[in-house]
């Protein structure tokens, strides 16, 4: 999980994985100009490295839970540029085909790229025109193969993804990381969500939550993240996917409470303070 926390920090120095070791196979030959798309195949490691080193614009945690009728997912709408909260209306929950919902944290441009790949996948799936359709399980595995493949090329898509959906009454909720680690569970989260939201879910999630219970639980987790995750913004969307379809809520804000005693006179008793 070390990798996860780096991406939400938006660190620029050195990147999360510390890519000091290059591919051991080819020694890079450094030229003056950055060679771009003109080289391909075996020679692509020559010249400046083209692989992803570190993310630029990042989204923070996504949380997903199974509930009675399907899946609920929550993500805020922040896009951080390092330590600056640069964008505040980024939609990080998107529909994929008829049966699936994808939430992403990490590099936003890579998420957009993933959406493009999935769009093509769903297009070809629809073009068969044969009554079969890719369900959430299939999309999840497709994403896993894609992420793992990029990881093997040392050029990852810098995202952690949450994929949920319902098909033929079966609820599915899975997660894929930028290095291809994937699994299914009743509740999943990315980034800081793993540290701050999942413990809450482990205690309070149960089978067959109602929609209201589910939303309340997600809001509890998101509020916690809002207090403690520096890259969180107080503008979130909650998405629900059931057999009947998908709805993504309008953006809204959580109520927060700052009237704790310790915040009222924070410097009381401290050396050099007025009181």
């Amino acid at each position, binding site marked *: 999980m070390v990798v996860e926390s780096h991406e939400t920090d938006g660190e620029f120095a050195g990147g999360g994985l510390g890519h000091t070791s290059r591919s051991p196979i080819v020694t890079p030959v450094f030229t003056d100009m950055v060679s771009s798309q003109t080289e391909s195949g075996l020679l692509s490691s020559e010249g400046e490295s083209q692989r992803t080193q570190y993310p630029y614009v990042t989204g923070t945690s996504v949380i997903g839970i199974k509930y009675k009728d399907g899946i609920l997912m929550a993500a805020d709408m922040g896009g951080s540029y390092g330590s600056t909260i640069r964008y505040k209306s980024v939609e990080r929950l998107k529909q994929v085909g008829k049966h699936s919902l994808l939430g992403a944290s990490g590099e936003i441009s890579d998420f957009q790229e993933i959406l493009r790949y999935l769009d093509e996948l769903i297009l070809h799936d629809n073009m*068969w025109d*044969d*009554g*079969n359709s*890719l*369900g959430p*399980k*299939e999309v*999840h*595995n*497709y994403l896993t*193969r894609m992420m793992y493949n990029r990881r093997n090329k040392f050029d990852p898509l810098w995202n952690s993804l949450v994929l949920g959906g319902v098909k*033929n009454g079966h609820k599915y909720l899975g997660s894929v990381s930028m290095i291809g680690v994937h699994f299914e569970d009743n509740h999943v989260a990315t980034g800081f969500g793993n540290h701050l939201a999942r413990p809450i879910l482990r205690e309070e999630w149960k089978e067959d939550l109602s929609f209201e219970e589910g939303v309340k639980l997600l809001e509890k987790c998101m509020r916690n993240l809002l207090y403690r995750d520096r890259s969180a913004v107080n503008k979130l969307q909650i998405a629900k996917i059931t057999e009947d379809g998908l709805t993504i809520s309008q953006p809204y804000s959580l109520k927060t409470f700052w009237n704790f005693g310790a915040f009222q006179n924070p410097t009381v008793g401290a050396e050099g303070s007025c009181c």
Partner: protein
Amino acid sequence: MFRNQYDTDVTTWSPAGRLFQVEYAMEAVKQGSAAIGLRSKTHVVLACVNKSNSELSSHQRKIFKVDDHIGVAIAGLTADGRVLSRYMRSECINYGYTYESPLPVGRLVVQLADKAQVCTQRSWKRPYGVGLLVAGLDESGAHLYYNCPSGNYFEYQAFAIGSRSQAAKTYLERKFENFTGSSRDELIKDALFAIRETLQGEKLTSTVCTVAVVGVGEAFNILDQATVQALINEFEISGEEGPTNESVAEEAGGESGGAATEEGGAATEQETAPMDI
């Protein structure tokens, strides 16, 4: 029949709008030994006649497992059948690897048909000389398809291909309406009866036929000889006389004979190009 002028190349049309090379390929299917398939709501059974060339040699493999949920029976050039089975296995494995999910039968069949079509439109290729009965199970239920060298495919409730398949088709036509609700064992029994029809009075034993089943909760598997023989004995059909069949080795034109179809596939007359179906 004056079709010799336009039959050298698969890329040459006849004036009547036929590709004779493709039709000749379908003749090859008719020369192969019989293969039949039938399906119910939950199971699909494939059976074929497996005669060896001599007592010294082993039997030709005519039924191939393609994946846990798909199997295929072939009639015609078995080498072509083997190669296509390998292709089907490859497609299933690749799909399963990418999507962790079984390849829908309908999609595999279309891919197979597209592959066959390519060979009807290249001057340096020849059509595959094998007909395939593809039996499989997926989310939408049990399926039985027939893939033709022409690149056409049809879905069937029950079908028979190969030599003397007309006899089997006649039997199946009588019984097919009940197949949807049949149990696994009833379906196998009907398959064996149909095979017996193609044997024209020869004794039906498990040494001359092969039976395979795929169904809900049952992966595609070829029944072993002992099991088949036991079933034959149980159904007491090995000693019974089969109904006599007038047309011995004559096939009244490829897909004609109106094997039960789910969609399309009208019965054709002798001289109509089978590809028109």
